[in-house]
């Protein structure tokens, strides 16, 4: 059951900040998805699109900040209401940075003209899929105010980190075997790093959700 404020426009304000932020989160989910797909299917046009749409996310973050400022000024929220605003600010900032990383991946992929024939692994694509899945979990925990879902995110992130390490060693091998791949593999390792960062930032989101639901900062 959901508690209602005596002032109903207060509920509307809080609902709006949440739905705006969730919409922003979904746009970024699509950006991560698109940028990961570039690893499989080179597409310079698509890459440029992703880079360009990053501006839209910056704008959304500013809108959420303005809305939060407005609610703080008008309502001087306390307790769970205050936490809702605080986490919206932190999560929107985090998602904005995640979008930067997705744009960086697209940026790297826009310089790749072809995939070397001897490059046969799809471990980084796999890493990307896990990162995407974990990001999706983090934002769904926000959407549902679910500490249960939020608690899964750090576990999966640990797995992501270990796969990242494996990718790193694997790519060193590939480069040693075939010097022709060095240029491409270097780009791929940078991309792996971007993905690993998205993983860390998803964990930040899940922490905020836990703070909101449980009321204490861990």
């Amino acid at each position: 059951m959901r508690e209602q404020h005596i002032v109903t426009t207060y509920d509307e304000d809080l609902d709006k900040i949440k739905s705006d932020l969730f919409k922003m989160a979904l746009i970024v989910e699509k950006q991560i998805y698109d940028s990961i797909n570039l690893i499989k299917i080179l597409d310079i046009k698509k890459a440029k699109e992703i880079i360009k749409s990053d501006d839209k996310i910056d704008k959304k973050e500013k809108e959420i900040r303005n809305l939060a400022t407005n609610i703080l000024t008008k309502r001087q929220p306390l307790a769970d209401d205050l936490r809702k605003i605080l986490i919206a600010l932190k999560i929107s900032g985090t998602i904005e940075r995640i979008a930067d990383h997705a744009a960086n991946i697209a940026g790297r992929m826009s310089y790749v003209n072809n995939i070397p024939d001897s490059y046969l692994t799809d471990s980084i694509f796999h890493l990307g899929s896990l990162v995407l899945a974990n990001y999706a979990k983090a934002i769904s925990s926000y959407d549902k105010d679910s500490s249960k879902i939020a608690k899964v995110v750090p576990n999966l992130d640990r797995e992501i980190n270990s796969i990242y390490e494996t990718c790193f060693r694997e790519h060193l091998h590939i480069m040693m075997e075939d010097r022709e791949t060095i240029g491409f593999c270097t780009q791929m390792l940078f991309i792996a790093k971007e993905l690993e960062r998205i993983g860390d930032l998803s964990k930040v989101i899940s922490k905020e959700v836990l703070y909101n639901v449980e009321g204490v900062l861990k």
Partner: protein
Amino acid sequence: MQKNKIEAKKVSVFYNDKKALNEITLSIPEKKVTSLIGPSGCGKSTFLRCINRMNDTIEGCSMTGRILIDNKDINEKSLDPVLLRARVGMVFQKPNPFPKSIFENVAYGPKIHGLTQSSDELNELVEESLKKAGLFSEIKDRIHEPGTSLSGGQQQRLCIARAISISPEIILMDEPCSALDPIATAKIEELIDELAHNFTIVIVTHSMQQAARVSKQTAFFHMGNLIEVGKTDSIFSNPSEKKTQDYITGKIG
């Protein structure tokens, strides 16, 4: 260790046969500010009046349970309520200076309690009290003008000067800022911070933000019951009781 200045033990108060407070047990730490919050009619003022036995003066009002100040029961027969009130000052919602000069307003208490030996001493005490109340520099040239000629905020600080002139140990404040503008309110709040170094302060306020700003401890009352008491920070960031949460966030309980 934190010393408790005031301890309420199972305090119930009745107005005739209507129960206004229900077994309140609450400790108030010395030289700290404690806020009482809660909806109108929940018994905050009634509780405050238990601490200086002002309820004694209300027809039909009776109390059970005990109030201890420095571990002594203030309702002991042997205890003189007049002396008690000298130890417990009170500031009300509406500033209520006497229709006398600023000086006389402050000098009145020390005079009736015989706190000073000479007029020089009295002058000094009045000046000191006005200084502590943060009012002296604003009014030093018109100390013999009527107290009622001051602005609302100044009048309230005059009432605080009057309360502290007799060196009480405890100051009770019942919504002291509700009739004041934000600047006058800010001055009173700053003064409360200052006074907390020397006095135990209990303040009733309807502003959550004010309670959060001025007090270390907050107690939430609801329909005559003490629902929750704790560190102000945690009450306003993460209350443990749902009733508290609903009240401070303005939800329909």
